[in-house]
């Protein structure tokens, strides 16, 4: 039986060798520079603390990423359970006789016929960015991962420790709020 070479850790080189990689990994999931910076700092600290647990079976980077993944889940859990956040207003009656039907003032209104051409407009990206900023963070993270970074559903579910039905509810709510925001700021006649 052959043994592959054991990997070793060298914390003095971590920043130089891995900080860009860890940062890119984080920022493509959590689109906030300061938060991403804090998360990778926590990752390096946790790695240092736990370096005696490193068995050398995986590379240094793989090991750091496994710690980072847990930090990202922790962060998502934290914001997911944060109280007092404004909930997204939905388009439908949630109970009573009209449950599941459109609330009158939320019925889609017709948009300017020129909107299709507007897609090339640079200003539209700014409007989208702004509307994304109004989303509760837990919705923005999932929406971005799915729509902008185009992760597979399964991957997002694993990385944020949520179920796929949970994911689709979040996507639905995020798109509902974005739609309303863009309708008001961009598409309305």
């Amino acid at each position, binding site marked *: 039986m052959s043994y592959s070479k054991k990997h070793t850790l060298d*914390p*003095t080189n*971590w*920043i*130089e060798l891995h*900080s*860009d990689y860890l*940062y*890119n990994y984080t*920022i493509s999931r959590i689109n906030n*520079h300061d938060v991403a*910076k804090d998360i*990778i*700092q926590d990752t*390096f*600290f946790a790695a*240092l603390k736990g370096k005696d647990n490193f068995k050398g079976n995986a590379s240094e980077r793989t090991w750091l990423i496994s710690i980072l993944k847990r930090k990202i889940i922790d962060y998502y859990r934290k914001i997911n359970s944060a109280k007092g956040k404004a909930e997204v207003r*939905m*388009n*439908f009656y949630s109970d009573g006789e009209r*449950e*599941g*039907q*459109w609330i009158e003032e939320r*019925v*889609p209104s*017709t*948009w300017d016929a020129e*909107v*299709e051409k507007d*897609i*090339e407009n*640079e200003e*539209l*990206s700014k409007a*989208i*960015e702004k509307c994304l900023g109004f989303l509760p963070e837990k919705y923005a993270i999932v929406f971005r991962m*799915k*729509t*902008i970074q*185009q992760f597979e*559903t399964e991957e997002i579910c694993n990385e944020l420790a949520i179920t796929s039905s949970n994911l*689709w*509810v979040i*996507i*639905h709510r995020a*798109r*509902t709020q*974005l*739609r309303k925001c*863009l309708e008001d700021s961009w*598409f309305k006649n």
Partner: protein
Amino acid sequence: MKISCDKATKICDKQQYKEASLWEKAQLNLHLFLCKKCGLYSKQNVVLTKCYNKYKNVENRNTKCLSKEDKNQLENKLKAKL
């Protein structure tokens, strides 16, 4: 087979990522055939998806990275713990 507008728009959102099941698509199509409001929602949703795609291309051109200063800060904090 009949679904509410709430359910229909939810499937419609899922379908923007081509991930609605065959059964969901059948339910959605029947609903869209009968409901004008959701028909408009669905049509506009396609426009929105195009917009998000466009935004995605703009966004992914902007590379984000750690500055030299960020790295020095990290380096110093880590060194202090070594």
